[in-house]
C-alpha cells in the first residue's frame, strides 16, 4: 500500500502539471493540499503517539523528524539548526519514499517542487498547535542536489493574547 500511495501521488503531480502551465502554480497547489492534510494529520499523530507538549522549537523539530516522519513515511530525517536565533532548522532526508519511482524532473518543469505537499503538511500541522512557520525546500535530490533538505523557519507565535492556552 506504500507503493499505491507513491503511485497515486505521482499521478496527482502529473495531472497537476497537465492542468497548470506554470511550475509555481503547481507548487502552490501542492502546498495547499498538504496544508489541508496537515491540519487533520496533526490530531492523528498526537492521538497515536501520545507525545508530551514540546517546550522548544528544537524539540518540536526533532519530534517531526524522528517520530512523525517515521510514523507516516517510514524514514527519519536528521535535524540541524541553521540560525543563531534558534528558530530556523533544516531536516535532511536521505531517503524520500515519495520519489522512489521518479528519476529526474523533465526539462520544462525545472522549478517544480515535487514533494511540496510535505511542506504544506508540516506547515498545517504546526499551525494547529499554534506555531506559525514557513516551510520550504532548500535542496532537492530531483534537481541535482546531494540530499533533500526541508527548511523550517518558526515565525513569531501566532497567538500572544493575555489568555495563553497551556
Amino acid at each position: 500500500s506504500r507503493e499505491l500511495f507513491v503511485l497515486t501521488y505521482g499521478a496527482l503531480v502529473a495531472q497537476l502539471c497537465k492542468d497548470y502551465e506554470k511550475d509555481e502554480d503547481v507548487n502552490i497547489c501542492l502546498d495547499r493540499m498538504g496544508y489541508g492534510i496537515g491540519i487533520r494529520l496533526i490530531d492523528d499523530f498526537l492521538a497515536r503517539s501520545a507525545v508530551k507538549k514540546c517546550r522548544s522549537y528544537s524539540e518540536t523539530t526533532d519530534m517531526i523528524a524522528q517520530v512523525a516522519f517515521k510514523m507516516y513515511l517510514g524514514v527519519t530525517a536528521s535535524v540541524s539548526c541553521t540560525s543563531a536565533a534558534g528558530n530556523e532548522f533544516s531536516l535532511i532526508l536521505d531517503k524520500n519514499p515519495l520519489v522512489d519511482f521518479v528519476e529526474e524532473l523533465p526539462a520544462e518543469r525545472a522549478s517544480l517542487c515535487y514533494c511540496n505537499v510535505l511542506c504544506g503538511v508540516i506547515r498545517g500541522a504546526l499551525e494547529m498547535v499554534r506555531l506559525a512557520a514557513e516551510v520550504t525546500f532548500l535542496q532537492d535530490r530531483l534537481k541535482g542536489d546531494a540530499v533533500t533538505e526541508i527548511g523550517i523557519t518558526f515565525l513569531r507565535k501566532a497567538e500572544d493574547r493575555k489568555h495563553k492556552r497551556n
Partner: protein
Amino acid sequence: MAIFSVYVVNKAGGLIYQLDHYAPRADTEKTFSYPLDLVLRPHDERVVVAFGQRDGIRVGHAVLAINGAEVNGRFTADGKDVLEFLGNPANYPVSIRFGRHRLSSNEKLMLASMFHSLFAIGSQLSPEVGSSGIEMLETDTFKLHCFQTLTGIKFVVLADPRQAGIDSLLRKIYEIYSDFALKNPFYSLEMPIRCELFDQNLKLALEVAEKAGPFGPGS
C-alpha cells in the same frame, strides 16, 4: 456503572458533538386528587417539584405530562398554564408524570461554552506555570473528566464516580475523532460532527469501557 454523556468542545468553546448515554430515565406517573400534596413552583421554563417528595417523585423533578399529554414548558398541551390548571379542583382527578428534565440542545451549548471559560480560568489560577487546566470535576453523583489536546479540542466525559479507566477512554475518543471525523474529507474542522461512523465507534468504545466496570479496561 455508567458513562452518562460525552461532549466535544472545539477551540473556540463551541459544542461540536454531544452524546447522552444514560439508562432510560425513571419517569413516575401518578393519579392525584385535589388538593395536590406536592408543592410545585415554576423554574426557568418548567414546573418543578419544590417539596413533598414521595413515591419516586423527587424534589427537582419536572412535570413532563398531564393526563398523558406532554406539557410544553409551563403550559399544557392545549395552552393552559400548568399551575392554574392544577389549582382548579374541577380538573381533578388528574394523572401527572414527573421525571428528570433532559437538557435541551441550547442549554448544552451554553454549558459547554461556560465550561470552556472555566477551564481557561482554571489554568490561569494555577500557582505553577504550564498547568493543564481542569482535568476532573467531582460531585457525589458524577465525575466530569476533561482532556484537552494540544490542538485545543476538549473531550469531556461525565461518568459514575466509581467508573475507572476514563483516562484511557478519553484517549480512545481522541483516536476515534482523528480517525472518523478528521479523516472524513467532507467534515470541516471546528464544525458540528455529523459522521455516522464516529457515532457508532464512539458508542462501541463507551460500551467497552462500561463493561470493564470499576477496574477499568484490561491493561
